[in-house]
């Protein structure tokens, strides 16, 4: 891993570094983006993350949760996490105010393999908050647009109000990124597609020899993303999925995030699909 792991005391396990909350930006109903900055200057200077990695965010007396980094990897001093309020920790994170302290450990996990995708077409497929760990990929593309061929984002959410990062879409489009959107339920102002994300594949003719698929979203969505990709002869070695499980340590120690032989926190969260294939369709693994 290129990045330096941030922890407070080498002689302790799980002790976080402190980060200052700079901003809590509401995104959509129930989702906000938390911008933080490591307090310790030397930790801040060596903190780097790669797109797809996550941090463990910690609040004393409440707990710790794994949250993807959703910001620009070229700006590692302002680390952004897009959080959905689903449990004790995530709800408490969303109540934070600028100036508050939050514990941070990380970054953890495997990144999207951007280094191996030069000259390739990128097909980014996300559902709901699954766009958060893919936004750093898009920032990377914006900075290095010439490194890639076609870049297409397929993205869907429950309703138009649930689509994330809509203010940035024009910038993405200005960098020749094609965005196809869909929602499960339209509202009166919605003029776009209604339906599930994998359905958007019918509007594409990806070149299976040039296309690399990055996908994150509900597992049921990713199953169909795999199906649609295979139907277009994109081989499993060109598909990458980011999985999610309960995590306590982030370092392959606590056993919570096991998925077949994998620790998702350490062997993932980003997996090449051929490694996952034997296990991906097993019920309740």
């Amino acid at each position: 891993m290129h990045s330096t792991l941030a922890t407070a005391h080498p002689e302790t396990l799980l002790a976080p570094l402190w980060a200052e909350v700079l901003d809590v930006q509401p995104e959509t109903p129930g989702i906000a983006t938390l911008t933080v900055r490591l307090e310790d200057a030397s930790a801040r200077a060596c903190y780097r993350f790669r797109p797809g990695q996550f941090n463990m965010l910690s609040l004393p007396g409440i707990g710790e949760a794994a949250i993807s980094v959703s910001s620009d990897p070229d700006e590692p001093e302002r680390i952004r996490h897009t959080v959905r309020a689903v449990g004790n920790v995530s709800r408490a994170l969303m109540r934070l105010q600028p100036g508050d302290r939050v514990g941070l450990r990380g970054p953890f996990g495997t990144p999207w393999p951007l280094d191996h995708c030069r000259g390739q077409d990128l097909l980014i497929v996300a559902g709901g908050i699954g766009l958060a760990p893919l936004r750093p990929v898009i920032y990377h593309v914006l900075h290095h647009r010439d490194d890639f061929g076609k870049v297409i984002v397929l993205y869907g959410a429950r309703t138009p109000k649930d689509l994330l990062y809509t203010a940035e879409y024009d910038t993405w489009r200005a960098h020749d990124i094609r965005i196809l959107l869909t929602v499960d339920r339209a509202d009166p102002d919605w003029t776009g597609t209604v339906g599930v994300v994998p359905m958007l594949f019918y509007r594409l003719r990806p070149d299976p020899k040039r296309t690399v698929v990055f996908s994150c979203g509900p597992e049921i969505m990713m199953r169909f993303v795999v199906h649609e990709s295979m139907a277009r002869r994109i081989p499993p070695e060109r598909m990458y999925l980011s999985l999610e499980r309960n995590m306590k340590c982030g370092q392959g120690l606590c056993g919570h995030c096991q998925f077949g032989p994998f620790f998702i926190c350490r062997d993932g969260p980003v997996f090449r699909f051929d490694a996952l294939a034997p296990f991906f369709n097993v019920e309740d693994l």
Partner: protein
Amino acid sequence: MTEQNLTLGATVALSKPHLNDLLQSLRAHGYQTHGPQVRDGALIYGPITTLDDLPQGYISHQDAGRYRLEHTGHPYYFALTPGPDTWKRYLFPRRRALFHFQHHQGTWETAPPHDPPPRYALLGVRPCELAAIQIQDQVFLRADFTDPYYRGVRENLFIIAVNCLRPGDTCFCASLETGPEAREGYDLLLTELDDVFLVSVGSEIGRQHLQPLPWEPASAFHLNQARRQLDAARQRMGRTLPDPQHLPETLLANLEHPHWDDIAQRCLSCGNCTQVCPTCFCWDVQDEITLAGDRVTRFRVWDSCLSPQLSYLAGGNARPSIRARYRQWLTHKFASWERQFGTLGCVGCGRCITWCPAGIDITVELATLRTQALHAGGV
């Protein structure tokens, strides 16, 4: 006698009462001496000072879902096979403070715990349990990450192992080649014969503690006796596990086998198997906050894959059924573990069989899965 020098790997004879001198020597060097003892009708581990604390004269009757001790008055100190307790909890306690959050001048600070690691000398570690410690070493002392708490205890651990001459009714260490004879990983190794202990020297520190004691060179008679009894022990395992080396392949190829539903009908998902297992390592993190709210201690506590909470995430549970959770437990031990750590996660101690309230016997379930998979033409 003691004017001779012991060498590493040597096996000598020590009259039984002199083991007390060894315990005393260890305590004089700052070790807390712990060993097996009978409490509340079961064999557990705890502080000992002399041989009198050991469960001399007891035998156990064990079967799937059954455990009874009987006092027969036999002369052996180490005849009892493991009960529900494990040495694991010395290295990886059920509950341990990781660090503290302290509220100070309006903000939170972190503070490491201040307890120095204890120095334990463990007496009576059986070969299966020694193998379990070595398996946990791979989990907690990885090349890319070392658990500082585990390492603190482990580095100072003095292990007096004991060869297992009387395997129990639910034992199958011979199938996994983790026993009944200890091969490595001990400081000293005892073999309990009628009148003496044979003591093998496994480390320099073990040698130093044994050297001053009134040991005698081992006689051919004693060495032969030990050899014969170990050979007999291998034949007396209460259970066998056929072809364990094929289990990873078999289990991973049969994750949807109908036999998982059959087991799920019987499993209560109580987690006893994971609590008595000497290799299970899953843990949870919990915060404990003072009433004043100014100090939080973050604890690590044992968790269990049989608990529905283990995989709880964002309002859902990744393994909602007993079938899924039992499959996780068994496939982790006998398949995923091998992929993760290069070895199986089972040592054949039989605890999970004995302490399953539903009497589920993993040797039976694994044999059934393997036989049915083979009959179906798979692996």
